């Protein structure tokens, strides 16, 4: 076999492997999306029916089951938690990047170490405390608790984004008479806007998808979608309910999948910066 043929074969094998990986990565998403539009007669068919008469019946049932109010819970908790974590974390990251913070390394290590603690260790004490404060099942409690998931991420990622902004522009702002806060808000922050987008999206994904803390702390009144999904679908072993399962799953997935695919660049930036 000539060298050229071999190279072509290797390239073909590479592209095939990539195609297979992409197929496996998106298969569950495609499957549940298609199934959500299928009638009970079609949904459990194998081989899967790619041509079928689509129905919105499953989505109607999801609406009838009161999913709207749970969706509202998820939206309130996620928006609140993201705003709080980004609002607290971005100035802190600026401080660690630009100001002389005493014991900065130790403090940053403390922030990071909180991300490495297993969530169940937080969940039990928080449950007992929130029961005593009669705050289990409130949106506010979940919003505050989600600081512990998002804040370390926001501080660490944003610090690396701020570190990438040259300090020349701080100096220029100081020459122009800007005080520290003006320099932060009007000069440095806009230069790190991509970083803010990145941490906002990552916090959004992690909060929207979170299950354990929501399961333990959301009571009845503040149940977010992942919790509802598992409670709501008892008896889903019955193929008759698979369409319903799919439609409710798609409702849960839609916000994160749409947002992530639209701004994938920022998600990727987070992981590139986060581990280097």
């Amino acid at each position: 076999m000539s060298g050229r043929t071999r190279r072509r074969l290797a390239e073909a094998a590479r592209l095939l492997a990539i195609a297979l990986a992409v197929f496996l990565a998106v298969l569950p998403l495609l499957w549940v999306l298609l199934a959500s539009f299928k009638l009970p007669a079609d949904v459990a068919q194998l081989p899967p029916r790619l041509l079928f008469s689509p129905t919105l019946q499953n989505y109607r049932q999801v609406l009838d089951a009161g999913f709207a109010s749970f969706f509202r819970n998820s939206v309130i908790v996620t928006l609140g938690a993201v705003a709080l974590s980004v609002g607290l974390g971005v100035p802190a990251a600026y401080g660690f990047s630009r100001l002389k913070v005493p014991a900065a390394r130790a403090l940053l290590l403390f922030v990071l170490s909180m991300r490495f603690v297993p969530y169940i260790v937080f969940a039990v004490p928080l449950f007992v405390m929130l029961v005593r404060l009669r705050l289990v099942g409130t949106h506010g409690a979940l919003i505050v608790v989600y600081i512990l998931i998002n804040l370390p991420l926001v501080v660490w990622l944003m610090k690396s984004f701020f570190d990438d902004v040259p300090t020349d522009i701080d100096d220029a702002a100081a020459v122009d008479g800007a005080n520290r806060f003006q320099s932060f808000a009007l000069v440095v922050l806009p230069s790190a806007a991509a970083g803010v987008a990145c941490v906002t999206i990552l916090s959004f994904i992690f909060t929207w998808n979170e299950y354990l803390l929501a399961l333990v702390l959301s009571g009845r009144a503040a149940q977010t979608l992942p919790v509802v999904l598992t409670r709501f679908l008892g008896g889903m072993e019955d193929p008759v309910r698979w369409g319903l399962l799919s439609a409710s799953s798609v409702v849960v997935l839609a916000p994160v999948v749409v947002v992530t695919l639209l701004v994938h660049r920022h998600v990727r930036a987070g992981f590139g910066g986060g581990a280097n």
Partner: protein
Amino acid sequence: MARRAPSASAPSRPHRAPNHQSRLHWRETFGFIGPALLALVVVALVPVLWAVGASLYDWHFHRPAARAFIALGNYVRLAGDQRFLNAVWVTLIYTTVSVSATMVLGTLLALLTKAPFPGKGVVRALLTVPMIMTPVVSTLVWKTFFFEADQGLINWLLGFVGIAGPAWVASSPYAFMTVLVVNIWFMTPFVYLVMDAALEGLPGEVVDAAKIDGAGYWQRVRFVILPMLRATIVFTVIFRITIDARMFEIIHVMTGGGPARDTEVLTLWVYNAALRSFHLGYGNAGGVVLMLLVGAACLAIMLVGLRDLYRRSVST
């Protein structure tokens, strides 16, 4: 927006009286980082310390009056608790297999997609889909549509090669495999994204030089590319361990810890002990053990991985 002054000629900041300046500096610093640190102390550090404290008590949630300090009594009991030791073992295997598999697959995937090809941007975006999908939903999809015994995709495919597939989720040892498969599928994109970005940051000249020296592809990967990525690999492994060692949702949704506690990882054990049986002291002691195990594993990997890196950088 402020005008930009040429940085080379920019004078230092306006001079102020030192005392005033240091006080101002302290207030500034606290203003920026204080709220975040306070918040983290309240919602994270206090609960962790509380958990450690509670683990020293015999304490049932519904019998607070009977709470008694027993020092390390809970830990002594844990050491002889078969169900707990099983959970430690399951966590160890689960984390080891899942971290190793995702590291290998994610790195391979990053290497595969390194050279340009048409549609690379779209492929990259699609490869991240498992990681951003709500884990509860992904697990439900795998469980219902793929692993289902009679009408699932996998057993249907196995049927073509004459294999009658098992009841995956309900039988031993297959249940353990199902949670591993979903975890690996879920977390490979994370490793892929990190390694992909790290590969992009490599100096191309070094790799090219090795190519000119006649090194084959795998030689280049083994002796040039991977060594340069060592720090990234070490930190990624640490991240991966902390995520898998606390994994809850995939297992809770897929098997609930069964069958016969085959899949009861430590997180699930603590959940059952502290929040289902309400033995707060005993359950928290298990949580503290989990935290210490994760910490020890991360520390060990950091020391081993980075000491080696240090030696390498000194010798070259």
